[in-house]
């Protein structure tokens, strides 16, 4: 039997249907891999019993010829998705012992289509972070190591556990969420495909909220095809989320025609930032050539308000977060640290329950919404957001996709970046996409001089994930990225 954990999701799907192996065998192979990968700290909660039970039912359905699109496919689920009867923590101390009585719409869609849950993956606390160092359950380690010094590295964040798990072959794919780059940045730093769909494409119902107007669920996978298969199951209108959009979900896999002849690709000059490493710029130029070689037409475009995106994002996202996280008060669920009176209890609970980065963002958010500051910060940031949206709308009058680097650097070591603002700069190429509500995908495109994965990002028009996948498929094909990390942890 082949090493089942080496398969892509699409290969595994086909193998299950062809009865080359069973869903239980596939699940067991991944359970074993997870069991050996404790050093990576990719999972907060492992659910082997649930996985085997779900796999057994998948095998029954496969035997009856009733296989769903993801039948028997074992997945990691970011611990931001509420899973019925399974601990859900958002990697925060404040959700200690929280076991939801409900299933998020996205995961329910995946189970409907036959997928199998291996466990809940680690992430930055409440998805706030770019390195997965803010998790109450400790940092996640990137399976990739630097060639020069062999140092352990961060997987990026906030979906670091999902990224690490998929990159280390602990699951075939994982769910993730992206508020400012939390799928694409870890995807780039771990050599994976990371897709943030259009805002409204996937339901947010049952996903622990960070910043409601920016949060969007998406997959981390080892191929563009796998991402397309995952999104086809995850996406769809949900009456329980009024910001989800009632549009039919196409068969995204069918969009992967490999033909981008005549497609217009925009190259935004504002993304050529000061101090960007030469190898990032070189990779970007390489990407441009690949797309041109495949018959696309490359155009220079301008997105003039790009430089304001990151500061505006760090007003809007904390503002919403400060309000969204008010419900964690020790009254109804999760952690409660007693106090002399109700205010004391609130203060003790939230002081003990939230980590430093979460507290920082709650403070920033509370400040920018305060009387006297609201207009200067929040309202101005919303105006910037409108301008960023308009930049993209104008650009998309002339182009079909936009190509940029995903991150300004490769993976770094835990503790290497301690200044919050420097950390925030890791999202400089990705936040604009969230601010505009557009779909973006990171595709692994090459290795850094130190042997670490680097990604290129394609940005599409709203709800045009099909064109995005088509372009990403061509980029993936041209890059031919087939490097894998050494399995040093097992």
């Amino acid at each position, binding site marked *: 039997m082949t090493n089942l954990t080496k398969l892509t999701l699409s290969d595994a799907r086909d193998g299950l249907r062809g009865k080359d192996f069973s869903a239980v065998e596939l699940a067991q192979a991944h359970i074993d891999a997870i069991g050996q990968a404790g050093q990576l700290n990719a999972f907060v909660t492992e659910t082997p019993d649930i996985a085997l039970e779900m796999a057994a039912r998948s095998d029954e359905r496969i035997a009856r010829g009733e296989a769903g699109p993801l039948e028997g496919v074992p997945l990691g689920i970011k611990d931001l998705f*509420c899973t019925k009867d399974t601990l859900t923590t958002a990697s925060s101390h404040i959700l200690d012992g929280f076991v939801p009585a409900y299933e998020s719409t996205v995961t329910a869609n995946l189970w409907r289509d036959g997928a199998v849950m291996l466990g809940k993956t680690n992430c930055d606390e409440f998805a706030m972070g770019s390195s997965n160092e803010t998790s109450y359950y400790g940092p996640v380690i990137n399976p990739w190591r630097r060639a020069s010094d062999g140092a352990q590295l961060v997987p990026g964040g906030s979906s670091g556990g999902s990224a690490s798990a998929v990159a280390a072959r602990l699951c075939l794919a994982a769910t993730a969420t992206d508020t400012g780059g939390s799928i694409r940045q870890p995807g780039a730093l771990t050599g994976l495909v990371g897709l943030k769909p259009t805002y409204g494409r996937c339901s947010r119902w049952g996903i622990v909220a960070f*910043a*409601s107007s920016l949060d969007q669920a998406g997959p981390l996978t080892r191929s563009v095809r796998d991402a397309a298969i995952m999104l086809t199951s995850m996406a769809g209108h949900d009456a329980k989320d009024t910001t989800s959009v009632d549009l039919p979900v196409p068969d995204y896999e069918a969009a992967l025609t490999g033909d981008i002849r005549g497609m217009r690709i925009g190259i935004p000059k504002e993304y050529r930032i000061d101090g960007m490493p030469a190898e990032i710029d070189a990779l970007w130029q390489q990407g441009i050539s690949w797309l041109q070689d495949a018959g696309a037409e490359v155009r220079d475009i301008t997105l003039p308000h790009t430089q304001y995106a990151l500061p505006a994002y760090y007003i809007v996202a904390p503002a*919403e977060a400060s309000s969204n996280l*008010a419900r964690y*008060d020790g009254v109804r*669920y999760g952690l409660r640290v007693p106090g002399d009176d109700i205010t004391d209890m609130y203060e003790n609970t939230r002081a003990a329950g939230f980590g430093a980065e979460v507290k920082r963002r709650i403070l920033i958010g509370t400040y920018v*919404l*305060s*009387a006297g500051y609201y207009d200067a910060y929040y309202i101005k940031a919303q105006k910037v957001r409108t301008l960023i949206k308009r930049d993209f709308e104008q650009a998309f009058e002339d182009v079909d996709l936009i190509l940029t680097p995903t991150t300004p650097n490769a993976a770094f070591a835990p503790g290497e970046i301690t200044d919050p603002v420097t950390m925030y700069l890791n999202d400089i190429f990705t936040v604009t996409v969230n601010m505009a509500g557009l779909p973006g995908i990171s595709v692994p495109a090459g290795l850094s001089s130190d042997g670490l994965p680097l990604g290129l990002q394609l940005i599409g028009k709203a709800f045009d994930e099909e064109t995005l996948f088509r372009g990403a498929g061509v980029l993936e094909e041209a890059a031919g990225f087939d490097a894998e990390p050494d399995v040093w942890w097992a």
Partner: protein
Amino acid sequence: MNERAEAGRQAARVHGATGDWEIVIGIEVHAQVSSKAKLFSGASADFGGEPNDHVSLVDAAMPGMLPVINEYCVEQAVRTGLGLNAQINLHSVFDRKNYFYPDLPQGYQISQYQQPVVGEGAVELDMPDGSTVEIGIERLHLEQDAGKSLHDQHPTASFVDLNRSGVALMEIVSKPDMRSADEAKAYVSKLRAILRYLGTCDGNMEQGSMRADINVSVRHPGEPLGTRCEIKNVNSIRFMGQAIDYEAHRQVDLLEDGGQVVQETRLFDPRRGETRAMRTKEEAHDYRYFPDPDLLPLELDQAWVDQIAGSLPELPDSKKARFVEQYGLSAYDAGVLADDKAAADYFETVASGADPKIAANWVTGELYAALNKKGLEIEASPVAPEALRDLLGLMADQTISGRIAKDVFEIMLETGEAPLSIVEARGLKQVTDTGAIEQIVEEIIAANPDQVAEVKEKPKAIGWFVGQVMKASQGKANPQAVNDVLRNKLGLDQT
């Protein structure tokens, strides 16, 4: 504003040592939307039930839960706005009002701040002196109710009941247009009448489905507005008058003693009939309002609004106008009846078979007095409107006299018997047989020669004889017949 209203307002001023003080009142009414489900969740909005029986995952603010607007509640708000002759805003926005409290699970209340669903409108008040006063409506917006903290269930802990968490409220904000406790009471009564007519709120203040926060300030007439205090916890219209009078005098005393009114929230204590400070402006929360990113702006279709407008029932003002026009009632009587839909319906049933003015007098007079005494609402009247109509019919066809009618009405109140059977069973039919009356008259004339002499001098003294005859007939003699016979026998001119 007519002269009579102006005079009434002057009379309502507080007479202080430094001259007259004008009371300025604005009212925020929280009216629970009549709806089976809550504003943003499918949970039941019913009163009662065991604590935490009517709580959805959304109401309990579980992680990842999202609000979904209840379209029916929006329709009720629009209907109310139309009933208040107010601007309907086709574009409105839900905001989050952020504060911590155990009965507020989300840590914020979803409300409408800068862009409410309903804008400016007006309510017309009929005052007892016959004047009318128009009170401006500033806005109406939709918001969630909070849950309830229970402090008496455990020696050291408080419990929280989330049954009311997320129930839809309409906050209706008046302009500071009222100048007396009477106007304030009339305003809330009128508002309640309109809400009940529309069926958008049951208006039950005792159960808390309608609550009023009253802003009171005082000033010398013509001066700018004074500093206001907001009075909370006023849960009946009667208490409202007490609270306003107390608060206005408190402020006048304070100012005349050289002090200053501090802007604050005050709580009305119905047992002591006074208000006391709850929190000052300095302690007020910074609510950090911002648009709720979980909810798209509310976009209404003009055609949908028009459809609701077309389905509105006849409201108190048009009903009042119709009562004046159709039944010839006085504006005040028409207003009193029209302000209470049940009373208006009762009256119309009675008036369907009786003289409308007499019907109005009986409903607002005898009936109201009797109900008042028994502490009953008109819906629970022991005398059905059809029975009262029949009673007035017996009076109209002279089967009974007005005096007997009142006696019969008393019996109806106690026994619920039909008027005709009471009259027949108790032999209360009016005597119109002149032979019988003549016999009584002759006996009385014979027995009272002095009075006979007197009445020849002073014909008005005939009233004494009428009384004697009625007494002797136990009230059953027809008064007109008695009069005619008396005049004839006493040799007076017929009138």
